[in-house]
């Protein structure tokens, strides 16, 4: 799949611009602050109805002093053109996003089902270094593209969790649990199960990418599902933990484990009046040379690890959707030393559409067949 054309109106620092993109490689060059990243963000927002920067809000995308932004474009997927527009108004009466796919108003979930996109940027180090919630956001944003059921389970789960927490605050929790527990366990198990499937995949795939980028270092990626592992379990060695997980990987076993963990934590939930077990408390542990990356890794290692995880997600989506997602690379070359750059470029051979930004000259090997744009204060012009 690829973006053929995109028109931007009042988006970040870009007032009006229409771009037609190369189906394969596109490079945006320009000085810092010229608006290169905003162009990447507009592509993500057009494809998925939201920014790939997971902490960004819809209204932040509107150019300051304006009341709306509008993106319009043509996407090609499996020999079919999709006409798509995404708009958002800031005024209070008509607030909210409007997504129109082939003339029909639709929801973002429809875009998640149809298209897929992965972005690599310097901000990704957060996946390794920030709190568990950053890792859960990373999982949820990408796995929602892999499975529309996962996306609907997540929103159902959020509602159940809010009701369950409210129940815990208002009533004394008895030995039966809450009326929300049955569905809480069913949906929570489905979410955990799919995360487990992805992390199994990433374990081999991400470490392979990391080995290539870092000339031989070992990356480990381990899932810490709240419905299986207690806080005592999390202190065990990786091998011991993995064998616990191995023994409980079937959905029925996961559900059983979830039920048992809830029972075990009942007293604590009664006391703290909030839900202490469930996928909203999951984490992933990333290790480099068998040491926790969060506490032991260097910034360079974090970046390489984040790139490897993102490329693993890319491959996972490619397999699930049977076509390569659109790949956005934001200033990624400046972040890596020359050997890591070359190793990364070597893995681009089988990619779909690629959109790259760089303040420097793009590495020669990818610039050859690319369409190159120069961005000056929010205006992009084709220079090659």
């Amino acid at each position, binding site marked *: 799949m690829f973006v053929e054309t995109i028109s931007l109106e009042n988006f970040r620092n870009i007032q009006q611009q229409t771009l037609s993109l190369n189906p394969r490689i596109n490079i945006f060059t320009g000085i810092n602050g010229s608006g290169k990243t905003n162009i990447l963000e507009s592509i993500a927002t057009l494809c998925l109805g939201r920014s790939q920067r997971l902490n960004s809000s819809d209204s932040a995308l509107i150019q300051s002093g304006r009341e709306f932004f509008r993106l319009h474009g043509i996407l090609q997927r499996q020999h079919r053109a999709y006409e798509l527009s995404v708009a958002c108004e800031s005024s209070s009466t008509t607030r909210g996003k409007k997504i129109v796919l082939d003339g029909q108003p639709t929801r973002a979930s429809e875009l998640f*089902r149809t298209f897929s996109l992965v972005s690599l940027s310097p901000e990704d180090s957060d996946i390794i270094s920030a709190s568990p919630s950053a890792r859960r956001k990373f999982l949820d944003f990408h796995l929602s593209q892999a499975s*529309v*059921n996962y996306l*609907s389970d997540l929103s*159902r789960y959020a*509602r*159940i969790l*809010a*009701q*369950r927490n*409210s*129940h815990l*605050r*208002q*009533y004394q929790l008895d030995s*039966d649990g*809450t*009326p*929300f*527990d*049955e*569905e809480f366990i069913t949906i929570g198990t489905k979410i955990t199960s799919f995360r487990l499937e992805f992390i199994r995949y990433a374990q081999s795939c991400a470490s392979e990418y990391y080995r290539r980028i870092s000339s031989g270092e070992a990356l480990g990626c381990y899932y810490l599902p709240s419905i299986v592992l207690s806080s005592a379990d999390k202190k065990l060695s990786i091998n011991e933990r993995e064998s616990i997980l191995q023994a409980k990987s079937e959905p029925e076993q996961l559900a059983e484990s979830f039920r048992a963990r809830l029972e075990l934590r009942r007293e604590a939930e009664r006391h703290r009046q909030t839900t202490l077990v469930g996928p909203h408390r999951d984490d992933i542990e990333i290790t480099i040379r068998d040491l926790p990356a969060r506490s032991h890794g260097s910034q360079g290692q974090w970046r390489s690890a984040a790139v490897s995880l993102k490329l693993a997600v890319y491959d996972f989506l490619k397999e699930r959707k049977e076509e390569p997602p659109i790949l956005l690379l934001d200033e990624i070359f400046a972040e890596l030393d020359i050997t890591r750059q070359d190793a990364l470029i070597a893995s681009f051979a089988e990619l779909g559409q690629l959109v790259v930004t760089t303040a420097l000259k793009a590495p020669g090997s990818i610039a050859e067949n690319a369409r190159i744009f120069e961005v000056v204060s929010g205006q992009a012009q084709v220079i090659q």
Partner: protein
Amino acid sequence: MFRSAATVDRLITLLGKLPGVGRKSAGRLAFHILKMPIEEATGLADAIREVKEKVGECQVCFNISESSPCYICSDPKRDQSVICVVEEALDVPSIEKVDSFRGLFHVLGGRLSPLDGIGPEDLSIKALLTRVNENDNIKEVIIATNPSVEGEATAVYLSKLIKPMDISVTRIARGIPVGADLEYADVVTLSQALEGRREF
């Protein structure tokens, strides 16, 4: 928006309180009422007054009714062994349209929702339990609450209370609406329909 006499303004404000009616539609309705023949307008006013004066709740099933027990509860031809539990009185006519269901109803008056401060004591759950307990004819309770998070929790809550009474508790199925083409069904509904599939 509209600048008009105080009485018209009051009507607009009151109409605007109705669900699904914004200020603009309220204005349109008010001016429509102004143009109505007098007997039609007073007829509407009388209907509103009468509905509030005459219609109450059936003390057995909590359905809206002008008498208590209501016409359903007092109909001896009804199947007295089945009670269908619904959230709102509005759901009763929907299920009444189903010819194959000739049982009794029980209207909960809402669903469990701690976020809205609605607990078991705010619904007619106690009355349902007493009804089931005291009536030996009842063999089955069908729970027809909505498939929302809250409706499901209410269903689970009820089933845990009723099952120990040695009464069969069933839940309505979820799936594809009849008359809808598979290709137009949304993915979530379809996947639930697949999960709930049956063997021939």
